[in-house]
């Protein structure tokens, strides 16, 4: 039946395409509606999938399937000796898309780069407040403090001047918020009195051009015939069929109504792997789920107490019950897909007896504590309440009494930040730019205490290592520093590292060339459909 319907729809597709050779249309059952199409205004992956990946390019790009940074709209770049100036040489002959209201009169050049950054950076820029939005990602990556100026050297050369050496800078420029928009389109829309069109009808240089969007229903894209990378993209049309329910996405995939889907129900994965009409790609996600002790409150200010508690947690049981197999035990604060991951670090052994003895040796008895369970599902923690219950049982076995608390999500984030917080917090992190700094400094650095450092942990030997790694540009040297930082982290145990999620992408067998992207995006530039 399914096959028959596929043939019928293929027939209709051919009919619609007229006499031309069959057009290939890739249908992606996406999980939700994008907030808009200007990636710099938003922070959610759903929005990036619909905007920055198909429609735009950046100066540097992440090579799909890796966290490696490769040239994009900049063919090459060099940093000055002191690490304060980066000069980018732009790719020539790159064309912007056109739409009903706009046809570009020139190719991509330095003005577009300057526009794309200055609108986020300068408060008096005409587009700074034009979309009524805020530049959240640009702000949260500290770009306003970091970038001193963006200068046009000539039409095809741009220079960024920084206020301090920052090795992750190039990786930041490969992030979604750094997508390059057309300055000419922006001017045209401003003149027409419709600056919001930048967010509603995007024009970029990416592999697909935007055709139409109907909220909560469908987004349509067409192949960009002038795309600068030869032979890409491989399909003629890209369609997002917005399907919020995971079970329904699976049904649509089986029925041939879409070719590929994200975020399956963990409970369905086994059935999908057994299903001949479906293939499942998988990879560890760029994330970590952890339990952060408050290291400023006794007895959790003692590393040995934290270490003892870590040894009491049966992580394998958590992977089996909470992740239902879609996770892997975490021993380091960064995931294994990230460069500088230190595989030589040994995880704390699961040993309740030894843990109990360690607590006694530290003079800790009748300990009672709170564990905070998040009220929302996240890839790094699909069910925090269940996880907290398992830990409650584990800690109970070594004589530690646990009370589980939870708050509404906004409250949870806010209250867990407090320095005198009572209890250990379940939380996690998904990486932004594939740089270890984005985990180690953001989550464990001294500057982040009372903010994203939920362990309130400021340990000088660790801090020195990650600060030095920020200023060095040699990758080998940075790797060494981060590997050492992970050793210090493990000895000090500010967190119990719990798990990294495994990302599953179910797709139909005719889908070829799809790579699971560690940074979380869903990218279809290299994907083709077998006949």
């Amino acid at each position, binding site marked *: 039946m399914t096959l028959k319907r596929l043939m019928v729809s293929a027939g209709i597709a051919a009919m619609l395409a007229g006499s031309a050779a069959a057009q290939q249309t890739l249908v992606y059952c996406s999980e939700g509606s994008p907030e808009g199409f200007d990636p710099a205004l938003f922070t959610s992956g759903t929005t990036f999938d619909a905007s920055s990946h198909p429609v735009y390019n950046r100066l540097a790009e992440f090579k799909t399937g890796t966290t490696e940074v490769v040239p994009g709209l900049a063919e090459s770049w060099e940093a000055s000796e002191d690490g304060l100036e980066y000069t980018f040489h732009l790719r020539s002959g790159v064309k912007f898309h056109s739409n009903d209201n706009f046809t570009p009169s020139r190719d991509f050049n330095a003005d577009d780069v300057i526009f794309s950054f200055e609108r986020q950076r300068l408060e008096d820029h005409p587009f700074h407040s034009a979309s009524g939005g805020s530049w959240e990602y640009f702000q949260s990556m500290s770009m306003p403090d970091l970038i001193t100026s963006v200068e046009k050297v000539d039409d095809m050369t741009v220079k960024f001047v920084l206020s301090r050496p920052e090795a992750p800078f190039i990786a930041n420029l490969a992030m979604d918020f750094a997508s390059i928009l057309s300055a000419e389109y922006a001017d045209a829309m401003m003149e027409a009195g419709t600056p919001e069109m930048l967010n509603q009808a995007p024009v970029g240089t990416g592999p697909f051009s935007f055709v139409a969007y109907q*909220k909560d229903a469908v987004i349509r894209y067409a192949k960009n015939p002038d795309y600068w990378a030869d032979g890409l993209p491989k399909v003629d049309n890209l369609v997002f069929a917005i399907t919020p329910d995971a079970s329904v996405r699976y049904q649509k995939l089986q*029925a041939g109504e879409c070719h590929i889907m994200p975020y399956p129900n963990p409970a369905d994965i086994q059935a999908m792997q057994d299903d001949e009409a479906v293939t499942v790609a998988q990879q560890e996600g760029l994330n970590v789920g952890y339990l952060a002790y408050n290291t400023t409150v006794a007895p959790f200010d003692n590393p040995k107490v934290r270490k003892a508690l870590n040894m009491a947690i049966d992580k394998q049981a958590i992977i089996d019950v909470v992740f239902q197999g879609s996770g892997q035990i975490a021993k380091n604060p960064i995931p294994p897909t990230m460069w500088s991951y230190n595989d030589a670090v040994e995880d704390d052994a699961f040993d309740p007896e030894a843990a109990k003895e360690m607590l006694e040796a530290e003079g800790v008895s009748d300990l009672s504590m709170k564990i905070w369970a998040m009220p929302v599902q996240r890839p790094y923690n699909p069910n925090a309440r269940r996880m907290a219950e398992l830990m409650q049982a584990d800690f109970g076995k070594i004589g530690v009494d646990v009370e589980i608390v939870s708050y509404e999500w906004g409250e949870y984030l806010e209250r867990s930040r407090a320095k005198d917080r009572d209890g250990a917090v379940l939380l996690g992190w998904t990486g932004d730019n594939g740089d270890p700094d984005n985990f180690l400094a953001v989550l464990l650095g001294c500057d982040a205490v009372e903010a994203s450092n939920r362990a309130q942990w400021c340990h000088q030997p660790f801090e020195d290592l990650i600060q030095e790694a920020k200023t060095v540009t040699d990758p080998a040297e940075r790797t060494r520093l981060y590997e050492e930082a992970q050793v210090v982290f493990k000895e000090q145990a500010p967190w119990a590292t719990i798990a990294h999620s495994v990302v599953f992408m179910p797709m139909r067998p005719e889908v070829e060339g799809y790579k699971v992207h560690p940074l979380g995006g869903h990218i279809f530039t290299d994907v083709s459909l077998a006949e």
Partner: protein
Amino acid sequence: MLRFFISRLSTFFVTFVGVTLISFAFIRVIPGDPIIVMAGERGMSQERYEELSRQYGFDQPVLTQFWDYLTGVLQGDLGQSFVTKKPVWDEFFALFPATLELSLCAIILAIALGIPAGVIAAVNRGKFFDRALMSSALVGYSMPIFWWALLLIIVFSGNLGWTPVSGRMGLLYYFPTPTGFMLIDSLLSGQSGAFVSAVQHLILPTIVLATIPLAVIARQTRSAMLEVLSEDYIRTARAKGLKPWRINGLHALRNAMIPVITVIGLSVGTLLAGAILTETIFSWPGIGKWMVDSIFRRDYPVVQGGLLLVAVVVMIVNLIVDMLYGLINPRIRTRK
């Protein structure tokens, strides 16, 4: 009739102001600061937080915020979504036709099946059909909607392949949607097969959404009919030797309709609530999904505006129902 209309309209206005107040207060009582929810795990600096607070007007006293909102509403300005930055009004009108189309189809199906079923059950009281109908009505009434929807999808879309799994229109069809009603737009588009595709996509969600109102209407019709059938004038009509279909169809049914219409009016509220689940499962681009998302994101303007607009729709339907009473039963419209 005019006096009746005016008195209903004044109630309408009082309710409107009440709903505005409740929708405004309600979302603020739930814990969760929209700015912090937006920032998520990433968090933001205190300066940035204050800047955004100012931008959204949260630094004003709550009473001032309410006054600004109320004056805005009375001028037809429901504000802008925090998330998409689009006017609430525009988003509502882009999505509401989908909900309306689905709800209308569901209520028509519920009435078309529910009233005859209730009449037949009442006439055959205690017989097999009556008992079968009442049991299935009870099942239909108590069934969880999401479970029922998934079951139908798995059987009819998955196993049998008769209907599409979800959505409003086959992805191969692409045409402008001037009215927002897919049944009409697909005909206007002139593309062959588009209308059939629209109907196919409507079948399962309509059945799911109609299930509860259908059960309620059938049960209400049956009990109202039973009551009327025991009246003296029905016995008189029988004694006169009228044909059974004239007795049941004209004399009894017309008088049994008053409570049935009440129930139909009330089910509009149920329908819109049911539409939230139905729309989410069938990826139906209506206001249900929109409102649920807005609550999770603490998107105040959308929650307030959406609640208000939905309340207005329910109130209008109730107003129409009240008018219908008057048409069916002259005693109501002349009562002082």
